[in-house]
């Protein structure tokens, strides 16, 4: 009996800043490549328009084309894994007197 095929490793997701020369170019890119986007389109002072895209590292080249520049901002998968280490374990509100207090300063009067 053959061993089951291993699940192929998933590529890390990179956070990219995609900057197009104009809105039409960016819209065409979004239509054709349908990347996972984060945030909203941002118009640069020189009229170019940019948006964050989250793309597996093996698909970055597919975004590159005339009128578009792609800048690597970071490794989103790596940042996410680091954040997972900051998730609570157990239940900090299980004790009867453990009530959430909020983060605001409570100001007299």
């Amino acid at each position: 009996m053959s061993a089951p095929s291993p699940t192929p490793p998933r590529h890390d997701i990179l956070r990219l800043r995609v900057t197009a020369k104009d809105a039409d170019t960016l819209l065409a890119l979004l239509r054709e490549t349908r990347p996972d986007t984060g945030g909203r389109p941002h118009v640069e002072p020189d009229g170019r328009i940019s948006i964050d895209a989250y793309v597996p590292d093996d698909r970055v080249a597919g975004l590159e084309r005339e009128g578009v520049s792609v800048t690597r901002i970071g490794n989103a998968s790596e940042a996410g894994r680091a954040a997972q280490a900051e998730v609570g374990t157990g239940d900090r509100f299980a004790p009867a007197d453990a009530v959430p207090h909020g983060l605001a300063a409570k100001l007299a009067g």
Partner: protein
Amino acid sequence: MPYLNITEVESALTSLATAYPTTSHLLTLPEPSIEGRTAHALQIGAPAGTPRACVMMIGGVHAREWGSCEILVHLAADLLEAHQNGTGLGYGGTTFTADQVGGLLQRLDLVFFPLVNPDGRLHSQTVDPMWRKNRDPANSGGSADPNCVGVDLNRNYDFLFDFATAFAPTATPQVSASPCDPQVYAGPSAFSEPETRNVRWLLDQYPRTGWFVDVHSYSEDMLYNWGDDDNQSIDPTMNFGNAQYDGKRGLPGDVAYAEYIPKTDADNAALLAERFCQGVGGVRGRPYKPLTGFHLYPTSGTSDDYVFSRHFVDGDQGKVLGFTVEWGTAFHPPWAEMRNIVLDVDAGLVAFCLATT
């Protein structure tokens, strides 16, 4: 204090309801999630003999936008504690007096539903941090592709759900009919998912809801209606329900279509969004912007447009202005920064609530 896991979001609400029995009420949502989890909401307000206007706030819809739950849990905790002890609230440079806090809880019911999508949050916090959808496998067709699991809950509401018919062929709506789209699959039908049906149920329980805020990330914006096209307040017949405009929606800056919004609603929504941003900005200067949801490309099936559309579809429904907070500049900021964002956004939400009339 690190990010809350899904058990802690629920136990935080239970704990608040127990600690503040006269000013809070725990609500159990009727439908368990796909993986069988029961969700809760918390209504807060001073005891009242008559029904009051309501502000409803939801979060934890997109799994990877973790801080949304913390924003709402901490806000509820701040308001309850300040009201009970007769104190004001200080969020950096934005402060509120005890009279303002007390007045808020006298005048309004505030309903917090901080974790709409518990299955997705668990998956994001323990397996795939970039996961966005719920965990519904029903439409995967048996595919082994992990992307074929899940529905984007903020495309699953009944607003222009048939986006292929509603929008112009050259529009670029951020939505998909493909069950294997990793991010924005809208589901097989509007309200196909228990999580969105829970939100609809909650709205039905509070018919005096006048304002609805869905907390997301990111972009440091406060979005208001509409998200399918530019706004216009001239032609009431040019609206989302008019099939005559099918195939024309969703293009920026054109004359073929713009979504109708009564001018008073547009003005009120813009003012409230501005007040939110002012509240945020006072904390430590983050420049949140008030914008309509339509900016370059359209959306459909979103909560904010659905809640506002209900009144136009059925005149018996109260009018609910819909808003979407897009906090921060990343999905998973380190907790030290997320803590600052909680202060920013909670200040904005208190300012927002104070501006409702």
